[in-house]
């Protein structure tokens, strides 16, 4: 059975597929449709393999679309994605999804490649006064950290779960949020990551007084 139907996708060419860290890549291809920061695309390498969804990590104004992904050794798609070279074909859906309305002074909370929609929102100048709390296991997985440091200054918080004490907060985003003394229940919180990360973070925010209607989540599934 074909996992993709005719009309679901456009055939594109890979412009670049850069390894950012062990197992982590930034894939670029030409933009064929306008999108809103926070939207996702389905990617595939063959119509027989189920597509997977990835948040766009580039500015709405860019001519290229960037997608962050990590290679899952036992996955069906990402080991093939990681082997793509410039010029190789790739199947890309139209951008879709509604994780796109970011209110003023948002708090973005991301784990790993879950930072992508927030990078897109920041690069597209869609938000002001944002705070980004990003969790990763090692320093090299803080993607776009130079840009984010410059853009957000002290409002860019890296939570590094396996780092030695030093330049980063050592621990997970949930540990950081648990003791964050600037946590403001009146701000809007946007979460992006795995189910476990989103569920745990959402519960923690609610326990600290953030109303559920101020929490919006995108789950990678």
């Amino acid at each position, binding site marked *: 059975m074909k996992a993709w139907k005719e009309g679901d996708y456009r055939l594109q060419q890979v412009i670049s597929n850069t390894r950012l860290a062990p197992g982590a890549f930034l894939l670029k291809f030409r933009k064929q449709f306008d999108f809103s920061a926070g939207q*996702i695309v389905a990617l595939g390498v063959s119509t027989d393999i189920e597509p997977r969804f990835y948040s766009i990590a580039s500015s709405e104004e860019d001519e290229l679309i960037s997608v962050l992904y990590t290679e899952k050794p036992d996955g069906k798609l990402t080991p093939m994605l990681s082997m793509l070279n410039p010029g190789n074909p790739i199947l890309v859906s139209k951008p879709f999804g509604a994780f796109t309305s970011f209110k003023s002074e948002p708090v973005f909370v991301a784990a790993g490649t879950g930072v992508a929609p927030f990078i897109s929102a920041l690069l597209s100048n869609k938000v002001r006064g944002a705070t980004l709390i990003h969790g990763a296991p090692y320093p090299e997985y803080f993607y776009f950290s130079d840009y984010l440091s410059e853009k957000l200054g002290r409002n860019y918080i890296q939570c590094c779960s396996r780092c030695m004490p030093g330049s980063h907060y050592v621990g997970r985003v949930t540990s950081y949020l648990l003791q964050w003394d600037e946590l403001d229940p009146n701000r809007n919180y946007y979460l992006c990551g795995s*189910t476990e990360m989103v569920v745990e973070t959402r*519960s923690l925010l609610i*326990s600290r007084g953030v109303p559920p*209607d101020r929490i919006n989540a995108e*789950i990678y*599934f």
Partner: protein
Amino acid sequence: MPELLPLYGKTLAELQDIVSQEGLPPYAAMQLADWLYKKNVESIEAMTNISKSAREQLVGRYYVGLSKPEGVSASADGTKKYLFRSGNGKFVEAAYIPETGRATLCVSSQAGCKMGCLFCMTGRQGFQGNLSSGEIINQLRSIPEFKNVTNIVYMGMGEPFDNLENVLRSTEVLTSEWGMGWSPKRITVSSIGIIPAMNTFLSRSSCHLAISLHSPFDEERRMLMPIQNVYPIADVVEEIRKANIAGQRRVSFEYIMFDGLNDSPRHVREISRLLHNLRCRVNLIRFHPIPESSLRSASDETIIKFRDALTSKGIFTTIRASRGLDIQAACGLLSTKGLLKNKD
């Protein structure tokens, strides 16, 4: 010695592949299906119209693959909750719900769930893995009340459309002539509305479809169900309209009623607008509180008023009875989180 593979849950086409690979006559596939799904044997050795040499050959590579529940809790209202161990060592639950004249089995399709709905206990344990077709049907086959069950609902742990191929295999086994011969009208698959999988399900299965609605408003549903960011309910309903569902097939919308959140006349009006002229029903469900949640159920009085208001708008609306609340078997309460670290 190679790991034995389970036969239970295989479709006829898959059994045909197996007999072909084993060099057995083609009719042996139908014999296998007959023993597995009609005669309900528990071992290959018991399949006595298959030649002894063929059985010996099969036993070297396959086993039936049934597994009994590892635990059961019984509710004062007659509901029973069964605990099963899945192939990856994780646990799932199924709820047997007897009523006058019928008995419903609520089966799980995944260990845990990826969808992270705010009101659901299963979502809190994250995702541990997909169940195979055999593991899904085993929840029916291996309970003592197997022969009493009249209806099956895929409303237990997991999102069925996130494990579509195994769910479709299981409904094929359940509903095929060569399989268990159930009417698809006695089977309901419930989903939060993953559109591509839903469209595939609608085209490949005749079973009923239930969609978790819970709010007709975008922001509110997004708060309750993150999937709204990917597949908005308006798009889900639009796809169902396009499918032009006819005959006895039923589409229902599940609506958990939360006090002060989604129980107002404004919600009635918006549901009415959303479902206008769609042949469907709405099923109202009391919210069963989960720990550390500020959500509360709407009162029975509010739920009845809500039902009447929807009915007056021409939408057939029912209220689901809460069953198995005292054993955490009621809607939204299934969870094996406590077992993830306690058992291997």
